[in-house]
Structure formats: structure tokens, C-alpha cells
């Protein structure tokens, strides 16, 4: 989670990713930032994010993003 929080805060400084639960709804993460994020987490966690994974539910909060990463690591 720490690695993920570091990536997120470098991508969008000044956002409280630990507690924010509506990243997509509030426009904090849009399609451009999601793609940049996908690249970073692919490097850091050695997973591949596909277009099917890019749904709002998976990027709602740091928790849901971590859950997606774990799911992709299991595949």
C-alpha cells in the first residue's frame, strides 16, 4: 500500500489518497491519469492492466486499486 500511495501522490500531489474514496467521481483521477497510473503500477508490481480493468469501480480509492493489483498478480 505504501508503494501505491507514493505513486499516487507523485502523480497527483496534494490529494489525501489514504482517506479519499471517490477518486473517479470527484475527477481526481481521469482517463489520462489512470493511464499514467497503469504504467507506473505495471512497472512497480509487474502486472498488465487491460482496458477491461479500467472501470470506475476499480479506481475509486487506493484500496480498490490495491485490490485490482492483487487480482492481476494472481492471474
Amino acid at each position, binding site marked *: 500500500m505504501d508503494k501505491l500511495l507514493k505513486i499516487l501522490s507523485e502523480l497527483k500531489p496534494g490529494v489525501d489518497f489514504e482517506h479519499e474514496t471517490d477518486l473517479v467521481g470527484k475527477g481526481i483521477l481521469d*482517463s489520462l491519469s489512470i*493511464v499514467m497510473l497503469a504504467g507506473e503500477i*505495471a512497472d512497480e508490481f509487474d502486472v*498488465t*492492466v*487491460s*482496458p*477491461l480493468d*479500467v472501470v470506475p469501480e476499480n479506481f475509486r480509492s487506493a484500496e480498490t486499486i490495491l485490490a485490482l493489483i492483487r487480482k492481476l498478480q494472481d492471474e
Partner: protein
Amino acid sequence: MAYNSFAYLVVFLGAAFLCYTIAPMRMKHSVLLVFSYLFYFLNSRMLVLFQLFTTLTVYYAGIFMNRIDDGARLAKPTLPAEAKSGYRNVIKWQKRGVMLICVLLNVGILVFLKYYNFLSLSLDALMSALHLPTFFPQFDWLKLPAGISFYTLQASGYVIDVYRGKYRASERLGKVALFLVFFPQVVEGPIGRFDELGEQLYEGHPFDYKRDAFALQLILWGLFKKMVLADRANPFVDEVFGNYTAYSGAMTALGALVYTLQIYADFSGVIDIVTGSAELFGVRLAKNFDRPFFSHTVSEFWRRWHMTLGSWLRDYVFYPISLSRWSQKLGRRAREKLGEFLGGALTMSVALFAVWMTMGVWHGVGWKYTAYGLYYFLIVLAGTLLEPVNRFISAKTGLNRESRGFKAWQILRTFLLVTVGMMLFRADTVGAFFHMFRSLFGGSQMDVLLDGRAFSHGMDQSDLLILALGAVLLLVVGLLQEKHPDLREALAEKPTAFRWTVYFALILALVIFGAYGGAYRAVDPIYGRF
């Protein structure tokens, strides 16, 4: 048969609603299908064959992919562990082949019908310039089936979703057919997704007074926008853009502003009419507009204007390109060489370029539309690249980017950028646009505006007053929607006298101020020619 015509609203929609309401539940989808094909035939005659071709190819591609999946499911347990990964790849490539053939075939038809003449003319011009013999014949008989730009995207989305495993292809031909030809949305969208729309269309919905009353209110509101505002604006816009060399400064600016109002009122008005039409049958179409002129950035604007096109391009062009293996590899190398931010932004610009070019050319044939796409690509790219610079400046100057003043500035800036984009979209050519843009800073023509001469160019004082009041009304409704996202629900809770005053006011406005009769010509929906 335009959506804002008497023939459609009273005769056709009325008959469809009546037949749908009295038909038994299991026959309701057949009623919709029959009326949809009738509507399509009335609009496009024998070109309905193209619709049928797309429906059949998409349906059978889906079935084929289902069979491949079913075969794989049976075969996999029998395979040794080391062969499973290779087998998965084979299955993926088989399905990919089916999907690509289907999509390329249908998109190919769209490209040929829509762009062949323009492309061949341009290529021949190039050949002439190189002193080579011209090669490509022109086919003047090429005609566009109604809504081909919309239903082709919808069909492609379905096939790609099935390929990705988002859902299984439907085994019912009628369901797929209705999804592609449903008459309220076939001409100008919204571009639907099968998992949201397929079942809704197919299952029957019984008569519901409240739902149908809401539907009629939405149709009324859409008609108001289209006929009182959009069609009234048309003669002046035609004049300023048609004789652009005669205008400059305030007149050109007014022309651009009025056109922005026209296209918004026209497109969102027709979308309201078709959304209300679908609602009469219990079908909820996807939202296509979300008060776009309240946007703070151009990117946000395109998430709130023609939303279904934006989300289609995001899901079927932007993500596949930007998340692909080669793009991710390019991104890794770019981030190593140019740093995290610049590397990431530049890699993404490849996918962004594809999206905006597609968006531009989808809108029409000609270099102007390519320029239109390029205009927004450059703005969005600049916005992304300048973000750290903006943050730095704000930090140094103490500028509060969350303040109301700053947000208001962002809304104004976005509005101006979009209006310039609309000017390009409406201008005859790229050259005409540049002339008009330069002339904004030339002779002000404020005198033409102030002494009344402006009011003999397709728009008199009462027209301008109605348009201005209309724009204010749209703004007020937009602001109300911030508090009450479902205004019809909020209105339904008001006292009867208030509600019926609003309804009658709209109907009266339509009857008295609707732009029809001798001085006006019936204006086809702007987006109905795609």
C-alpha cells in the same frame, strides 16, 4: 422524417406508442423492431440493406465467438498443464480474427461511403501536383444510410465487448437487431452499449403514467430548444458564416456565439426528444449532455458534451492504444529518458492523437474536420504538459485554484476555447476560419451592432431578444440541475398550478416563438447527417 416534425412526433411516435401499449408483453419488442425498420426505410429507403448487413455480420461474429469460447471450455480440462497457456493464446487469436474482420468490414463500409469521394479527390490532386495521371473515379451516387456513423460505432462496441469477454454475444438475432436499429437513437445517438441497452429494449415495459408524462415533458423541452432557439438562430449564423468576408469584430464574435448556442440547442434538443421518445417505451438511453458549459477544462467539456462519443473513444480507442504492450514499453523508455512526468505525458499523446483525429474525421468529410480534431488535441496536450507549470505558478503567487474567482475564470476560458472550436466546425473551410478568427481583431463593427444594421442580416431585435432570454433560461435550468439533478422529479413535487404554468409556458413559447412559417426554413438536425 426529422425528429422535430409533426409526422414523427404525432403520427409515427403516436402510432408506435399505441401499438406498443396494447401489444402483449412478449410481442412488445417485435412492435419496436417493426416500427424501427419502418422508420429506417422511410428515412433511407433501400439503404436499409446496409443496416441489415451490419446487424447480420455483428450477430454472427458474436455467435462465432461464443462457439469458440464454448469449444475452449470443453477442451481445456482435457489438456496437459503445459499446453494450456499456448491453447489460451490460440483461442484469443481466433476470436481476435473474427472480431477484427467484422469491425474492419463495417468500419470499411462507413469509410468508403463517407470518405471515398473526398479521399480520391485529394489523392488525385496530389497526383496532379506530381504530374502523374489522375487515377480515382468519383462516385456521385454514394449515399449515406441514416446514422451510419453512430450505429457502426455501436455495432463495433458490441463485437469488441464480446471479444474482450465482457459478456456473451446474444443468441437472439432480434435483440441485436433492435439494439442497432431502435428508431429514437438510430439517426444521431446516443451511442449505446449492449449491456446497458440490450435487455431493456427486449423486455417489455407496461404503461406507466408518471414515466410517460415525464417523457412527454422531456420531448417538449427538447422541442423548445430545437425550434425556438436553434432554428431561430440559423438564418443569422448562415449569413455571418456564409458571407464571412463582410463581417469582423463584434459581428463575427456574435455569429460564433450564436452558433455555439444553436449547435447546443439543436443537438441537445434533439437528444432530449429522442430520449423522451425512448422513455415512452420504458427505455432509458445513455446521457449525452451534462451541462457542458459549466466545464473548467476542455477535457472536462468533452466528458460532458456528446458524452457517449467521448466514452466510446475512451474505451475503444484511447485505452486499447495507451494500455497496449508497445505503448507501455514506449512509456517505460520515455520515462527513463525524459523523467516520469514528461515521459508519461508524451507517450499518452500518441493515444490522445488517435482519439482526437478519430473524433475530428468522424464529424465530417474534409480537412476542416481534421483541423477540428487537431485543434482540441493541441489544447488537451498543452493542458496536460502545462499542469506542473500551473501548479508552480500557483504555489509561487499564492493563487488559490479552488477559489470561486479562479473557477469562474476557468469556465470562461473553456467557453471561449470551445466557441473558437465551434467557429472552426461551422466555417466553410480552414481558410475561412482563419480569416474569421483574424477578423475578430480587425474592424470592430460595434457600430453595425449598435446602430441596428446588424438586425437586417437574418436576425432582428426580437430574434436576438428571444435567443438571449433562451440562453439565460438554459443557464438557469443548468444551475437548478446542480441542486436537483432530476428536474422533472423536482417539478412534479411542486403545486399543480405551478407545474401546469411551466408546461403551458413551454407549449405557448413553442407555438408563438417556434421558428417555422414563411420567414424560416425547417432546419434538419445538425447531427442528423452523420
